[in-house]
């Protein structure tokens, strides 16, 4: 065991230290500089209104990047190119962020941009997300960007105003939680199953007050899409952020992206990024070990993301408190039963958790030359225009459409259901998104969280089932 020297620090501490405008004291929190501020239509209008009220301007519009994703329809525009919003208020919200960004000189990828997408899909694709950055957004899934070794977290609208006006945030220093994941994943087990397993293990408040660093051989073997899925759901165990140290996988992903450093600046950046890792002698505030080889395809059975079982495993019985009893009553399930053979009404493949090209490829691999079960509605919603183009170039859209699924326009869609993409009361949705809260996907809708492989398998069988049978059979 190496000795800890005073200079040994964690990845989080290195990034934190580099952004301190002012140290924390007994009386005041730290002032933390923010490198990248991501914005969307839902959590910004009141912040811009506050700036206007005070006569303040946006300090660094060049460090802001905006899009429209939550309230936008995912149905195709009509023949005249008009988008049909769920309500006039939704349209107004989208037009408000467009107006605000234009007024303050902030780049916004709107309807006419070939890069528009879910903010947490678009940022990395553009190369805006880079190792060592501080990144915030009025959106809790900002933790996604931690996959690149950035310190990235969600903030409220008041804080959106703070960052717009000052490029800074008041922050108390969080704790650190090291999650070491070791071993090879079994076939058909994905990053989504890993993070569901972790949340099921440490609980929905297991990370509260902490920044998680995920490390170990399993994480090293993951591609960037998988690391983003992993970090994305850090908030579902209450963590402020999740991080993965950047490595060659990260650099290969970022090389040549529009906003990545170019030429000599790239070499300088990579040399610096290579220092962004936890020193051998540094320790975390707390530590959890996860055996990746024991993880099976996983799903949720209740009304928060910590109620997790393997697809073929029984819902735990015995020590059920009032909250679990209420969750099971809402879901219509019983302690001790398995979910296998529960009839599924809707399958949603999309969201900032699982709407990237590799997710869609995984789902298409199951759905190719097969048909969606009779009476089941399947929505496939790419995370961005770039994902959509790449998927269509691969012919994935045809696979989904031929199977009887809907191939829709990019957006948050049914993950949050703000745009009208919702399930009917009582319907059971198998969803690749991140939250199974009561009514999240529509009033009285019931959600089971799953990986794209599992969701695709459920679409074909019409029942809660793992992809195992299809993986063994192949796609022909």
């Amino acid at each position, binding site marked *: 065991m190496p000795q800890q020297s005073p200079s040994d620090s964690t990845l989080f501490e290195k990034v934190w230290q580099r*952004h301190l405008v002012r140290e924390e004291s*007994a009386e005041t929190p730290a002032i933390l500089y923010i490198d990248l501020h991501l914005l969307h239509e839902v959590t910004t209008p009141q912040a811009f*209104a506050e700036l206007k009220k005070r006569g303040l301007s946006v300090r660094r519009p060049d460090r802001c990047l905006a899009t429209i994703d939550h309230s936008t329809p995912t149905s195709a525009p009509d023949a005249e190119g008009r988008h049909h919003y769920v309500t006039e208020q939704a349209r107004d919200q989208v037009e*408000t962020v467009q107006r605000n960004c234009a007024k303050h000189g902030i780049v916004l990828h709107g309807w006419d941009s070939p890069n528009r997408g879910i903010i947490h899909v678009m940022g990395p694709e553009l190369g805006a997300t880079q190792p060592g950055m501080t990144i915030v957004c009025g959106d809790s899934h900002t933790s996604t960007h931690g996959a690149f070794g950035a310190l990235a977290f969600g903030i409220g609208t*008041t804080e959106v105003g703070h960052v717009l006006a000052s490029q800074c945030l*008041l922050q108390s220093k969080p704790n650190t939680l090291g999650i070491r994941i070791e071993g090879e994943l079994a076939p058909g087990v994905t990053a989504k199953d890993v993070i569901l397993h972790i949340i099921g293990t440490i609980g*929905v408040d297991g990370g509260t*007050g902490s920044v998680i660093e995920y490390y170990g051989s399993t994480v090293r073997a993951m591609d960037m899409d998988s690391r983003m899925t992993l970090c994305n759901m850090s908030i579902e165990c209450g963590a402020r952020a999740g991080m993965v140290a950047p490595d060659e996988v990260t650099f290969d992903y970022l090389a040549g992206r529009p906003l990545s450093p170019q030429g000599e600046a790239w070499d300088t950046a990579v040399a610096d990024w290579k220092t962004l890792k936890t020193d051998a002698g540094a320790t975390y505030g707390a530590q959890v070990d996860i055996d990746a080889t024991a993880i099976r395809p996983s799903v949720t059975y209740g009304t928060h993301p910590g109620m997790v079982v393997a697809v073929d495993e029984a819902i735990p019985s015995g020590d059920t408190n009032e909250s679990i009893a209420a969750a099971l009553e809402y879901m219509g399930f019983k302690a001790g039963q398995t979910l296998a053979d529960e009839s599924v009404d809707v399958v949603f493949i999309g969201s900032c958790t699982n709407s990237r090209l590799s997710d869609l490829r995984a789902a298409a691999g199951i759905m190719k030359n097969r048909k969606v079960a009779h009476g089941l509605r399947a929505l496939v919603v790419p995370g961005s225009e770039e994902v959509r183009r790449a998927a269509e170039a691969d012919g994935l859209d045809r696979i989904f459409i031929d199977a009887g699924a809907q191939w829709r326009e990019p957006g948050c869609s049914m993950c949050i259901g703000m745009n009208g993409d919702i399930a009917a009361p009582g319907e059971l949705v198998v969803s690749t998104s991140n*939250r199974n809260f009561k*009514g999240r996907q529509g009033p009285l809708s019931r959600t089971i969280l799953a990986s794209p492989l599992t969701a695709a398998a459920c679409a074909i069988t019409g029942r809660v089932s793992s992809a195992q049978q299809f993986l063994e059979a192949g796609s022909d």
Partner: protein
Amino acid sequence: MTEQANNLNTEFRSRTYNIPLDNIDTDQIIPAQFLTTTNREGLGEFCFYAWRFNEDGTAKENNPLRDHHPDRQQVLVVGSNFGCGSSREHAPWALLDYGIRAVISSRFADIFCNNSLKNGLIPVTVEEQLVEYLHAHPDSAVRIDIARRQLTVENYGTIQFPLDAFSAFCLTRGIDQLDFILQNEQEISAHEQKYNK
């Protein structure tokens, strides 16, 4: 002018109302269908909407808030991990507009806690044991003193609750946090120069 000036909230008395459920998420506090607003006012109407109303707008029978009197029960006592989920500041806006001034729990989600303190809604973190006591004694008279960080519960006593010094200072003096940040303009510029930002 200041964010807190309108609801300066240094000390108040109220009765409690129990919602003895863990992990009450922000989708319960304010469902996403009400987030397309571009204002922060008037969200109380939609607070815990799916708990209070059926799809057709009629009142729900099993509503956990059915016996709640927001005019005199301005303090909610809830299970652990209150406010988990999304970062929507609409959650504290809705609770405040609904009439809630403080929430007592054994644990709050980070972002919700942050958002609440910036709007004058007080998250009071206490031991599980006191939550259980309050759940067993509905409609308890309580007094919350922000400057002293004290919660007084009738027939129980007075306890200290954690509240960071800066938030307590801002809440009790009506200090605006953005003004505080902007006073550090020189340091912010110096940081940008040092790191070539």
